[in-house]
């Protein structure tokens, strides 16, 4: 992985990924600016999760180059992915302790990160004692505890109810806005409303090819003002993104009539 260009947190340049037994994904070009929030939408198999793993350096590209600015990366998966045998505090302290930080210092920072996501009173809770939303908050705290410059989220709120999901999106915005400098966020989702609300721009991946089919900017300021979902600009952007996503979906086979 090479150094990214000035002002960019990370970029993919002509990246192609080959898997045995299926067409390659890409080539894809994506530059994520420092402090920017980018949403990625696309059909299943369009390579959304692959894109995140490439950015995280968890998977090497078959062709092309991945550039990363100097800095730390945080990752949140589709499920909370907590260690069931450890309490919330130990789960959040893990990245720091793996990096060699002394335990008391790591635990102090982990407690602060948990307090920041509203779980300051659940430090000793085991994952099974937490609701889905709370577990996801712990995962978010774990991703943020290292103070990452690049935060990668892979459909993190997909399994949550809509109220919890909206609350977590607000919290994510505020945690993002509170950091100086702001971290870059790449957020994979299959929900067009979530994409428009959360991100400054949205990348639409074409079904099964991994290529970018479209890129749409979301209007308005980040974090969103109250009741922004009632805004006409938001509704228009959602419709435009939904249409772009529909065009990018692979064509459905038409069944022959009787």
């Amino acid at each position: 992985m090479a150094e990214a260009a000035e002002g960019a947190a990370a970029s993919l340049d002509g990246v192609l990924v080959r898997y045995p037994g299926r067409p390659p994904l890409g080539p894809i070009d994506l530059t994520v600016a420092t402090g920017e929030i980018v949403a990625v939408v696309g059909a299943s198999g369009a390579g959304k999760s692959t894109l995140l793993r490439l950015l995280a350096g968890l998977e090497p590209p078959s062709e092309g180059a991945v550039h990363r600015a100097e800095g730390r990366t945080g990752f949140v998966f589709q499920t909370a992915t907590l260690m069931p045998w450890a309490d919330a505090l130990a789960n959040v302290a893990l990245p720091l302790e793996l990096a060699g930080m002394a335990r008391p210092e790591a635990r102090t920072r982990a407690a602060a990160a948990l307090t920041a996501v509203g779980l300051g009173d659940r430090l000793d809770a085991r994952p099974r004692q937490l609701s889905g939303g709370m577990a996801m908050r712990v995962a978010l705290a774990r991703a943020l505890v290292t103070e990452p410059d690049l935060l990668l989220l892979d459909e993190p709120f997909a399994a949550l109810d809509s109220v919890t999901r909206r609350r977590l999106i607000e919290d994510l915005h505020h945690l993002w806005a509170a950091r100086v400098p702001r971290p870059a966020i790449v957020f994979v989702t299959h929900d067009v409303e979530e994409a428009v609300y959360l991100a400054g721009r949205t990348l639409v991946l074409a079904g099964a090819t991994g290529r970018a089919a479209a890129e749409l900017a979301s209007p308005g300021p980040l974090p969103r003002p109250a009741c922004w979902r009632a805004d006409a600009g938001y509704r228009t952007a959602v419709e435009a993104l939904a249409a772009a996503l529909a065009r990018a979906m692979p064509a459905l086979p038409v069944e022959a009539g009787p």
Partner: protein
Amino acid sequence: MTRLLPPLLLVAVLLAGWEVTCRVLLVPSYFLPPPSAVGAALIDRAPLLAASAAATFWMALQALAAAALLGGGLALAVSLSRPAEQAVRPLAVALQVTPVVAIAPLVMIWAGLDNADRAVVALAAAVAFFPLFSGVLTGLKSADPDLERLFDLYGASPVQRLLRLRLPAALPFVLEGLRVAAGLAVIGAVVAEFVSGSGATQGLAWRLLEAGNRLRTADMLAALACLMTMGLLLNAAVGLLDRIVRRRLA
């Protein structure tokens, strides 16, 4: 307590039926003694049976410890390398599917006729080896793939990954393997003792053989009851350990 009541009631009914059948049909006692006679034999021979049970238990326990060390250690070593695992697994399966009775005479020769108890321990360990090896190996690889990725992302060392992720994830599998292996170790010890059959070992299997040769069926059944009880207790002990660890883990 309410969980124990139905099986105890069933046992009581079965024993009563057995007793009545023996008395009403005048079944010869060498063929099937009534439970009262087995109970009398149990009391009569209590010191001898207790000593034999202790001998069998001790051999099974040594076998279990050896199997845990060898099986667990090998699984740990093999889990670090895929080719090593692919090389070792078929051999482990081969050991598992070979009947212990068939290799017993060979192990007897290796251990030497004067060391029958060593042969029994080795054979029982061979039987108990596979569930432990397989349990540890499966468990070490059972960690959530996303957690594995997280450890990749944060640059965990192999030791950190083992201690903080794979071993804790493996523990429930290890305990399940231990539970199966504990039962098998007792079976292995008994079978091996049967095959050695010389009286050089003084376990419960020898008591069974000895009583059988003299047609003392009540004594046989008393030894059998001891074996059964031992198996149940061992199973309960491992089950308890399993519950304690699970409560601490999750």
